[in-house]
């Protein structure tokens, strides 16, 4: 996500004929929330006012238009005033150039819309990959159940996110983290809880109506809802083969409406965690580029809480406490699904710039692939060494582990660092799978807790270690001019001299794990007390396909007679 704070207001509307209305609204706005701008921005549903000369920037992000400085006490007021006067004089001399800049600014936003929407479609396709992956990893008798869970995850979490999730997460994004690449969505500017740098929950745009009925906001919504869906389907991998359908639907509504948007607001919606750089001198604030924690660790630790509540599948652990394997029923699905996920990740990470005009996208794409192959190679060889044979499913888990871990740092690290992060993730996922299987005895059929939870945490911490300062200048409003004494210094990790960033990442990633696990555990322990979320034992032995949905994934296996 682009968290570079806009240094200029994006759309200033001057409507003298409605000055009285404006004034009244402004007064109301100030009363309601201190973060309301004086000139109330209006949504742009048709997209005909989004993108003008103020969004025309050069490769370095420097604007063409200069805005009038307002703070006369600022130390560089004189210089800024002169720049503004020069710009005004130049614009008066060359009005055609200013008109042209309006087109350029519009084209920039349009390019970024196309990029963001299309990468969002790629992320959407990951849903198919995950359905195949998880279905292939379970037993044949539950294949239809797995397909239904993956399908329903998309449908119900989407509706929950549309109703309240998006507003909670991005309802105040314009306050601290306006996505400039999409025109800034200035109407999403109200915190429901908190204000200024201490926002805890967004409050504009419920049901995508009013301020969120805007072209830029809908572009952002499409991209963000498929990210939320990713967290939504991660849990399937841990709770499958034993959860009731109604219990699962409650989990999805909970993720789409509450647990995901809240943490998402803190990190991507301009909430308090993204602002700790300014408020607590912790580097650039908490930085998670594309969601190692916001999406993956959150999904992974939510899954962990649910897996603990549900308990292991029948027969998973013998009377002696030793684990038993339930072999994957279709490795073809597992590998195909993994490659679809890799393909979708080419939208997930590079798309998170929210703009093709940010040319870092090529580095991000390469880093993402490198971590994926490094993670896979590591898991494959480690399994070869430990058990004598490489395991296809673990090679796939290793690839996903690398992808999850590079998701937060992909924009901030060099390709070699990406390989190292992939290797660490490959080691961690193998250790995590064995730890859950043998020590903690949390039954995780598809390894989702290790892949998404543990490696997601690792990814966010990796930003604090490996970020090399070449990208992210001005991230979360920190160090726009200089940082650590260097002009243009971006997000920087421990290895490149910023310990503050490291501690920020460590704390933020751990907080994510605690929030996801804690909130889910409390809520669903209560639900489970009221009515068990687990299917009856006889249903679990038979397989959930017929008892839950009345059809099996492979009906030809059964002998069927018409009469």
């Amino acid at each position: 996500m682009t968290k570079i704070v806009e240094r200029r207001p994006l759309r200033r509307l001057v409507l003298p004929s409605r000055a009285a209305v404006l004034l009244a609204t402004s007064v109301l706005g100030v009363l309601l929330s201190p973060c309301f701008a004086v000139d109330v921005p209006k949504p742009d549903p048709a997209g005909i006012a989004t993108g003008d000369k103020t969004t025309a920037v050069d490769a370095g992000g420097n604007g063409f238009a200069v805005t009038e400085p307002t703070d006369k006490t600022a130390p560089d007021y004189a210089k800024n005033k002169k720049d503004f006067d020069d710009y005004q004089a130049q614009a008066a001399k060359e009005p055609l150039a200013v008109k042209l800049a309006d087109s350029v600014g519009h084209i920039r936003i349009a390019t970024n819309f196309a990029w963001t929407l299309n990468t969002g479609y790629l992320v959407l396709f990951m849903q198919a990959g995950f359905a195949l992956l998880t279905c292939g990893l379970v037993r044949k008798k539950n294949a239809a159940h797995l397909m239904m869970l993956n399908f329903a995850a998309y449908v119900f979490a989407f509706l929950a996110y549309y109703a309240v999730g998006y507003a909670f997460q991005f309802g105040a994004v314009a306050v601290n983290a306006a996505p400039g690449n999409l025109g800034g969505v200035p109407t999403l500017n109200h915190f429901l809880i908190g204000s200024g740098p201490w926002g805890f929950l967004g409050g504009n745009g419920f049901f995508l109506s009013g301020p969120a009925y805007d072209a830029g906001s809908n572009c952002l919504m499409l991209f963000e809802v498929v990210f939320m869906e990713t967290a939504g389907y991660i849990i399937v991998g841990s709770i499958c083969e034993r959860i009731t359908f109604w219990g699962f639907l409650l989990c999805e509504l909970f993720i789409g409406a509450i647990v995901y948007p809240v943490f998402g607001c803190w990190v991507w919606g301009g909430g308090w965690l993204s602002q700790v750089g300014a408020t607590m001198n912790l580097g650039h604030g908490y930085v998670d580029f594309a969601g190692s924690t916001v999406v993956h660790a959150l999904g992974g630790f939510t899954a962990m809480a649910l897996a603990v509540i549900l308990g292991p599948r029948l027969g998973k652990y013998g009377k002696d406490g030793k684990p038993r394997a339930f072999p994957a029923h279709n490795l073809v699905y597992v590998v195909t699904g993994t490659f679809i996920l890799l393909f979708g990740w080419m939208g997930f990470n590079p798309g998170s710039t929210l703009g093709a005009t940010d040319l870092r996208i090529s580095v991000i794409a390469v880093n993402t692939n490198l971590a994926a192959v490094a993670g896979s190679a590591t898991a494959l060889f480690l399994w070869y060494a430990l058990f004598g044979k490489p395991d296809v499913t673990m090679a796939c888990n290793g690839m996903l582990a690398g992808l999850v871990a590079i998701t937060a740092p992909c924009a901030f690290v060099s390709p070699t660092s990406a390989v190292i992060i992939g290797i660490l993730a490959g080691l961690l996922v193998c250790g995590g799978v064995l730890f859950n299987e043998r020590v903690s005895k949390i039954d995780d059929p598809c390894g989702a807790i290790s892949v998404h939870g543990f490696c997601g945490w690792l990814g966010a911490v990796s930003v604090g270690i490996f970020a090399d300062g070449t990208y992210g200048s001005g991230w979360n409003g920190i160090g726009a001019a200089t940082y650590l004494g260097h002009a243009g210094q971006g997000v920087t990790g421990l290895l490149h001299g910023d310990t503050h960033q490291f501690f920020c990442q460590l704390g933020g990633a751990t907080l994510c794990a605690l929030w996801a696990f804690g909130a889910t555990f409390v809520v669903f322990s209560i639900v489970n007390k009221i009515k068990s979320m687990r299917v009856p034992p006889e249903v679990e032995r038979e397989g959930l396909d017929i008892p839950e949905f009345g059809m099996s994934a492979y009906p030809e296996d059964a002998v069927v007679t018409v009469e």
Partner: protein
Amino acid sequence: MKRIDSIIRPQNLDEVKVRLTAIGVQALTVAEVRGFGRQKGHTEVCRGTEYAVDFVPKIMLTIIATDDRVTAIVDAIVAGARTGKMGDGKIFVSPIDEVVRIRTGETGDSAV
């Protein structure tokens, strides 16, 4: 008339079929079955956890033959299915009372 049931390794089916057709066997019924003999099952490893395969996949061949053909057929199956290791399988020969060809209603040896 005899019924010859043989349980063999799935990977030996091709060799057995070639040898049987070479000696003129015209009808053959095959079933995929699972079971264990003295070989017992074996263990495999999935995601680092061992699991037992107690019932090993096998192929069961059923051939109905006139009495004079039995020895040749049994020899062909043994030749095609033998690897010399435990788990090659077994052949059971048993008498049968009657055979009926459904299409024509023929019975006895001519229906075989």
